[in-house]
């Protein structure tokens, strides 16, 4: 099964929700990179990767996520993960591409986290 990427409209809290489904491996990671490059070119603050339908991930896929994370980190943004299936979750746990604190069981929890982060940033800007 191939990769499918669905990009949601920009959330008011500045985060972009991206649903990734299917297999993310050495053959498909390029598709994700292309799609994410477009998203990251905008002023998006953070990425929320919804992995509910992602069945498979290898280190190539992890690298895509890691790359996005590095890019966003340069401008103070975050990549958070939600809904990962156990086998996918295990891969993330092993390579630590995303801190445990930024992996969530549900989209709602991830949204709440991003909202808090954004508030903190806004408060920081006002200082």
């Amino acid at each position: 099964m191939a990769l499918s990427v669905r990009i949601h409209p920009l959330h008011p809290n500045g985060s972009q929700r991206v649903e990734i489904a299917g297999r993310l491996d050495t053959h498909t990671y390029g598709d994700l990179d292309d799609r994410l490059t477009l998203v990251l070119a905008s002023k998006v603050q953070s990425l929320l990767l919804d992995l509910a339908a992602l069945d498979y991930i290898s280190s190539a896929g992890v690298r895509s996520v890691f790359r996005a994370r590095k890019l966003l980190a340069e401008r103070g943004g975050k990549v958070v993960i939600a809904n990962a299936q156990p086998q996918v979750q295990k891969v993330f746990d092993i390579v630590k591409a995303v801190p445990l604190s930024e992996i969530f069981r549900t989209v709602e929890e991830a949204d709440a986290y991003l909202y808090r982060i954004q508030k903190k940033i806004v408060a920081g800007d006002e200082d």
Partner: protein
Amino acid sequence: MDATPQVAAGPGPQADVGVPWHASLRTRLMLWVGLLLALLLLAGFATAFYAARERVVADAEARTRYEARQAADRLDATMRSVQVSGEALIELSQRVTLSRSDLLAAMEAMLEANPSTVGGLVALEPGVLADRAPLAYYVGIGARGVPDRDLLADGYDLAGRDWYQRTLNATSAWWSEPYFNETAGGRYMTTLNLPLRDRDARRMGMVSLDVPVQALSSSLEPLRTVNGQRTALFAPAGTIAVHPERGIAFAHTLSGYVASAGRSDLAPMEAARGQGRALQFNHADARNGVARYSVLQPIGESGWSLQLSLGRDAMLAGLDSAMRMLALIGGLVALLAALAVLRLARRITVPLTELTASAGHFANGEFDWPVPHDARGDEVGVMARALERARDSIRLQLDEIGRYASEKQKLQSELDIARNIQRSMLPRDSVLAGGPRRYRLQARLEPAKAVGGDFHAHFRQGDGRVWFVVGDVSDKGVPAALFMARAVTVLEVAAAAAAGSRPDEVLVDAGRHLCAGNEACMFATVLCGVLELASGDLAIASAGHDAPLLRRADGRIETIALESGPALGFDSGGHYDVWRGRLQPGDLLFAWTDGVTEAFDAGEDAFGEDRLREVLQVSKGAADACDGLLVAVHRFASGAAQSDDITVFAIDCSQQAEPGVASIRLQVPGERGRLPEVLDALEATLGRAGIEAGRIHDAQVIVEELVCNVMDHGAVHGVDALSVDAFVERGRVVLDIRDNGAAYDPLGHAPPDLDADIADRPIGGLGIHLVRELAQDACYRRDGGWNLLRIELGAILPPS
């Protein structure tokens, strides 16, 4: 009182202490005492008032009677003096033969001597005087405003007057009714008429003396000064000469007044007056109801009478004001007493309030809050000390409870630890392979308490044999758990020492050990079996345990005919039968403890073996049988408390699919694009072998990482071919990746620094790390000019 500020500073309890003023003991005491006092005072006053009133009325009436008599006596004296003057003249004329002028001079002297008289008439029949001429001469006292008058000379018809004829015929003096006299100065007069007779009682004429009514009434003046006292004077025929009401005097007789003014209350007085007798009576003015006390007193023999009356209001006026003053004082006394009670009550209620506040703090757990007033000697002090004792007692008991609680908590946490230890003693579910056969061993244990006496275990012996035991220690809880731990150990040791497939020997051996030193006389029923993996041969022996059931591939359920031996822990040296059979693919062996068959529902019905068979009939495998049975038991018991530990144990046998081997050769680096094909073949092969999806995912990731690694970097090391072989062996997934390059061990890669800052971490270098982490075994070796990397994974995922 020193405690008051502390109490006021206190939190919450204040709200409880505040009693609304109307419910306060203080207010009630004050009101009741005030009310009682006021009632007592009122009763006293009422009694005193009525006694005093009787007395005052009696006194006033006596005084009125006395004054009436006095006034009557005074008037009588005046009238008598007038009569004496007249009688003196008559006496004189009888004794001495007087000339006309002498007689008149004597008359004038008499009149002047009596201050009451203002004039007098001397009338003589013809022939009485020496000159035999008649005489009718009025002697007036000029100084008193009355002139002399010669009636004969004026031609006055004396003989035609009624009063003259009456006097001539009278035998004694009589008083006329008052009349208006113009000649005597326009005054009302009354006249005393005296008949003049000689010694032979022949009528000679008359003498009369005029007295102004004013002269009589003036002696009544002092009586009128008494407030509410009234006087009236009645002439002999009833004419009213003095009356307190304007326009009554001289205009009416008493009987006429009684009739015209509607004074029926005075009728008895008129009757008494007509009879000339005295009368004292109470009466009420018929017109306005004003009560009065009147005394009618005849004035001597004159025919006049005097009325003295006193209004009852006037009698009581003084009493009323005195009583008002007294009531005012009484009210003040009651009020002061009530206030005094209020102050006194504060001495009780304020400490009570403070004690209540302290009690409120105790209720909040602030046991160090001081108890005020505990040094007092009165009931408040007693109460305060009782409160202190109660507080101390509660504190002691709370400490005790706290100690018990912490001990219980400690015990509970120890039990929790024990529970974990016991659970960890039980083996995990296993999948065992014997040649093409695969066996799944599944067990579930639910203790009735934190720890229990049920147990199950299985031990591999060598390569081809697995021992399993299911047991139930008598009793439950900690003692059973301790015995269970020993039983499991002893059984494992016995099984390890067993030479062949002789479960009876294992039971005998274990029984001997458990018997030794079993002071508590605990025992365990044990089902012990051994399975030859290659053939599926089973040997089972029972030490007092229910024989297991065998469900065949075609669905038949066989009861294993097994004669049970003695339970372990009793006498050693028992004998055990051994049942021998074979587990074929599709078969399922099922054992349980009596917690299953003796689970009771609310109606005390046991679950029983029939229901167990029904569940077993429809089970798909070992795991399904165990889980399904537990669900069925719980549904059956439907909330009734679990009475015993529940253990189920199942082994199923399945024929492994064709030895799953995926073997693919790839050219490096040209055939990089065939990787999905390799991964699909891997998934198909492992799936057929019954490997679960999570494991297949891990295997795919490993293969992808290693293949990509060789594809991307192998050419440098002279690689132009690689092969991937995957198969399942002895329950493990084995992946062999070979390449024909120079010797190179990718596992020798230094692991990436995963804890470094994100900005410093390279994006790559994760693949080999993933392989190392996902694999359970990974080894590298050279194999005939090839680099061989062998990766092994357990067929079953470790619990996450």
